[in-house]
Every structure is written in structure tokens, then in C-alpha cells.
């Protein structure tokens, strides 16, 4: 089922309290120099049409219920792309009083409420480069391999 999505990824963009830098870079990814449309990416205007949600920002309390509602409105199979350091790890405001601290926390809330998501992709960057978004799309499509891996290194005295 999700095989078909790889050829045609319709995305809906939600700013959940980001500073706009990631948001303009998302738009930038659609413009001539990057042209995400050549990879089948299309920005749609309703979450009901979307396959993937682009979340930017650390998810403020004020936006949380709306984010949950948007996720519910996306027909399955649905994916989440956490874009930028705020969405991935809460960014510079990961522990302030008015944010929940990023998509990992959101996923816990979703799990508690029984809302399923078919895949989550994390795209660090502050802001993300348009290429970073295209790279993530490449991973979602299966044409690229991820390069990062958890590392634990011992400093030998």
C-alpha cells in the first residue's frame, strides 16, 4: 500500500511554533533550484489530501490540539516528517514552559490516544536546508540510505 506513496508524496505543512526559517525553506524546496515536484512531492492545502505531515517547531501547548486533529484528518497510511531541530529534539526551547519539546513527545501523546502513524522521519537542521528535506524524501522513497547511526565512542586515556 505504501509502495504507491513513494511515487507521489503529498505533504501538508504545519508550523507548530517554529520560527519560520524551516517553513520558508520548505517552500524553497519547491522553487526552481530544488524543485521537489520532480520527486512527486506536492504541497496540498488540506490534511485530508496529505500523505505526510511536515511538522516544524517544538509544538507549543496552544498548537498541540490542532496538530493532533490534523494528524487524525490524514487518511492512512500517514507519515510524519519532523523538520528542523525544534521538531526533532525541541531545539533551543526544548524545556520551556510553553512547548512540549518536539515530535518524540508528540508521539507519546498520540500513542496514549490511540492514534497510529505509519512512519516518522527526523530531519535535523537549523533551519533545514531545502536539500535536507529532499534527502529525507529520498529516504522515504527508498532511493537513498540514511547516513547517520548512533555512536558511542570511548576516549581511551
Amino acid at each position, binding site marked *: 500500500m505504501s509502495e504507491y506513496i513513494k511515487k507521489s508524496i503529498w505533504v501538508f505543512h504545519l*508550523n507548530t511554533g517554529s520560527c519560520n*526559517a524551516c517553513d520558508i525553506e520548505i517552500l524553497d524546496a519547491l522553487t526552481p533550484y530544488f524543485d521537489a515536484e520532480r520527486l512527486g512531492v506536492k504541497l496540498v492545502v488540506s490534511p485530508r489530501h496529505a500523505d505526510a505531515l511536515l511538522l516544524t517547531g517544538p509544538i507549543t501547548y496552544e498548537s498541540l490540539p490542532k496538530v493532533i486533529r490534523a494528524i487524525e484528518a490524514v487518511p492512512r497510511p500517514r507519515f510524519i516528517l519532523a523538520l528542523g531541530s525544534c521538531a526533532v529534539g525541541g531545539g533551543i526551547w526544548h524545556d520551556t514552559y510553553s512547548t512540549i519539546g518536539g515530535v518524540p513527545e508528540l508521539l507519546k501523546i498520540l500513542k496514549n490516544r490511540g492514534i497510529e502513524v505509519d512512519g516518522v522521519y527526523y530531519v535535523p537542521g537549523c533551519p533545514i536546508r531545502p536539500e535536507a528535506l529532499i534527502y529525507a524524501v529520498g529516504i522515504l522513497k527508498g532511493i537513498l540510505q540514511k547516513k547517520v547511526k548512533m555512536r558511542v565512542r570511548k576516549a581511551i586515556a
Partner: protein
Amino acid sequence: MTKKSLDHVLKEYIDGIKSIYPKADYLFSNDTLFIVVPKEKLRDVTEFIHNKMDCYLRTCLGSDERPLLGHFALYHIFGDDRNGLNIVVKTYLDPKKPVAPTIMDIVPAADWCEMEARDLLGIEFEGRKQYRLVLPVGWPDNLHPLRKDVPYNIRPRPSAVGERITPPKTATATIPVGPYHPALHEPEYFELYVEGETVVDVKYRGFHVHRGIEKLGESRMNYQQVNFLAERICGICGFVHSTCYAQAVEKAAKIDVPERAKFIRSIVLEIERIHSHLLWIGVAAHLLGYDTGFMHAWRIREHIMVLAEFLTGSRKTYGINLVGGVRRDINEDKKKQAIEVLDKVEKDYMEYLKALLAVPEVKKRATETGILPKEDARKLSVVGPTARGSGLDRDVRRDVPYAAYNYVDFNVPVYDSGDNLARLLVRADEVIESIKIIRQLLDQLPKGPIMAEDFEIPENRAAVSLAEAPRGEDIHYIITGDGRPYRWKVRAPTYQNIPALKVMLKGAPLADAPLTIASIDPCFSCTDRIYVINETSARKIVRIGIGLCPG
């Protein structure tokens, strides 16, 4: 302005205030006059400064100074642009139960900042309607995050948030209309009440992007880290914020910033302005259904983005500002490349502009729509291109020069018609002016260090700093503390411009609403406030989420 006239003006202010309250303490530092008055006299003093001296309110803020002086403090910051003066009126409030008189009836612009102080510090304002502005619904009433005894990372009832989903009023059922609707970008939204296709009323709902920035800057971070935080107030005009912050600290601590650093700041500021305006022009074209215009504006903008990355290390949130100077130098090679890019951009841009304005729909739909008459503009004290599109000739870069702006020669484009086209043309012209400014700055770039050496930041100094963002004037107020700001307050330009939207939108066709809203180039990441009006008889409700720092 000569020294004598400044003294004269100061004397006028001080005499005026002394006549209201003879025991008023005052202090003059940098370009700012600090005055302390008791709260009983606050309204009289406000009236004198605002009405008699014809100043306008920059912003007001509360501060928890119980650990220092055993009181809450309330600051009202007024601006006198003709003389380049700031007037800060300080009032002490009771530490147990802080209550202050409202000045909203004298200065309508104080509405939001008073409510913000109420939310964040628990200061009650007598004699006005009070409501929750900043904090999310469901936040405990007696918890005020900016009080010094409240930790910055407190998170009351995080699980309760999920319960706040309110069902939509109309039969829109499961569609999340509202903050995340059509023109994407930002989660604040406008409810437009329409009859048929005509907008009869507007309601702005906001504060989805409240991230607790001021508290963070006052608790977890140190002076240098706050630069990076300030830059992230807004991802589009972030460098203005970090410059404004750095300047405020430098002013408060009387740090001598090297000239070269000032030049580099101005160059990057203008690059940011070009990127922001091109972005806006592209989005405006998109809102008018002219996607070709959007694509080509952003194609030209891409050169600027690459140039910004080449000069600073990042496409956005440049991260080169520090208190005392900048982190990256501009060498001869970079200078040469920058000039090449600017030449290309200027050529492409001029051609693009011709193409854009030749499209009949662009011209037809921008002309005579979203009109903000000059009188309204003055009354609402709008700033930036919104003011300049309505015939108000004000620009901080020229009126109160900062950074290296007093070394350059540039025009401030002003158009009188007050419609969307005027605001478009102001921005269009400003791009060319910015290119001109950067050329001059690169040409005159002085030699020397880019960072001030060894400086100390003393405690309990205050300063007001201004900067002209792409959307208007940006104000940072700072009180220094131990290793970090004691109080740091930011006022973004969109704050000043949003009330003007009501004037522009009423009675206009729905189809023009997105462009009109976009035409003030609102930046909600910076603003984070709410504008509430009375709901009137409206048949249908359409909620439009226009984002945009223009985007």
C-alpha cells in the same frame, strides 16, 4: 540635532513631569530618559508624555524585581523619534498584590502589552476589561511564568492539553480549519466573517507560537547564548532581532563595538531585507494565483540565500552576532563575490518586476484594495512598509541611525495611496535601495577587529534598542543581570501593524483578504499576540490561516 536642543528637550520633559510629581527621580543614559513615578501619578504622566509631548508608546512591560528591590515594576516605554529619544516610565507595584492603573484609554496601543504583563507576571490592571492573552487555555490562573520564583521549565498538566479540542462551530466536522489552513506557513489565524463574498468583520486569534523566549533568556542562558535565541524569535528577520538585542546590551554596558563589526552587521541586515522582501513579493504573486511570479521571485532570491550562507555560514539564522561584535569577517574574496551576486540579482530583479507588474490580475487586484488611509495609519502608529505605503515617512535606519547606517546614503520610498499596490511598490523599491546600501558599505568597509576586547557587563543597567526590520521597527528593552539579562523584552513590528488589518479588510471582497493580510507582511513568530473584536452579525464564518512572515 545639537547638544543644546537635546538639553532643551530633556528639560521640557523633566519640567513637565516635575510639575505633575515634584519628587520624580530621573536619569539620562545613552538616548533614554528613565523616570520613576508612583502608580497614582502614572496616568497623568502618561497623558503628558503621550498627548502633550506627542510621543507614541513603544511598548510596556512588567518585571519581577522582588529579589532586587522587593517590588514588582512596570515600565512604559515611549518614543520621541523627532529627537531620537526614548522615555522609560517606571512604576513600583505592591509585591503581594500588584495592581496598576490602566493607560489603555489614553493610549489604545497599550492593550496587548498590559494583558501580556497580566498573563506573565500577574499584574492586574484596574479600570479595563481583562482577558487571557498569551498563555494557552487550561493554564493555571495563578501561575505566572515570568515571576522569578517560577522555574522556566515548569510544565503544569501537560496531559490535560489533549482535552482542549473544541468542536468547530459550523458543520466543518473533522477538518482542522483554523490555524493550519490555506496559505500555510504559520499557525495564527484570522476568522473572517463574510456575507456572501464580502468580509464584514475580522477576528485575529493568535499566540500559537508562544515559546517562552523571554523567560528562557532570563533564566537558562547567558549573554552570548541569548544572541542565538534572539535570532530564533523569527526565522525570516532573525538577524534584526539578534542585532537589536546585542545593541541593547552594548548600550546598557557601554561597550565600544568595532566599526568593522557594525559594517558587517549592516551588510547582513540588508541582505536579510532583500531576502525577506523577495520572499514576500513571491508569496504575494502566489496569493494572486500567479505562480510563475512566485517561482521566479524565489529563483532570484536563491542567489541571496547562497550569498548569505557564503558570508555567514548559514542560509538563515546566520548566527554571527555576539554581544560586542560579530563572529565572521568579510574578506576581499567574499567582498568580490558579494558584488557579483548583487549585480546579477539587481539585473534579474528589475526584469522580473516588469514582468510581474505587467500581469493584469496583479495590478488590478492590488490597486485600490486593502486601503489604509493616512489618518488611520498615523492613529494606529503602524510601522515599516505598511506605514510607508500609507504616506507616513518613517524609517528607523534614517531617523535613529544604528550600526553603520549613518555612513550610507539611501532613499526611503514612500507611496501615498495606502493600498496593496503601494505596499508592494515600497518593498519593491526597498530591494533596490538595499542593494545600493550594501554596495556602499562594502566599498567603505573599514579595517580593524570585528569583536570588542574584554568587556564587562555591569548589573542593573537598562537600555532600549531599535532596529528597522523588513516589516518595521523592532524594539528590544533590556535590564542587565548577573551573567544574563535580568529582564528582556521584545516588541516585534507586526504587533503594531495587525490592528490596521481591521481597517483594511472590512468591506473588502473575500478573495482579496489573503493578499491584504499578507500585505502587512505579518510575522507571528515575532508577535504572538491576540486581537479581539466583537462578533457581529455574520452569516458565515470562514477561517483563514494566513501565515507569512510572509510568507
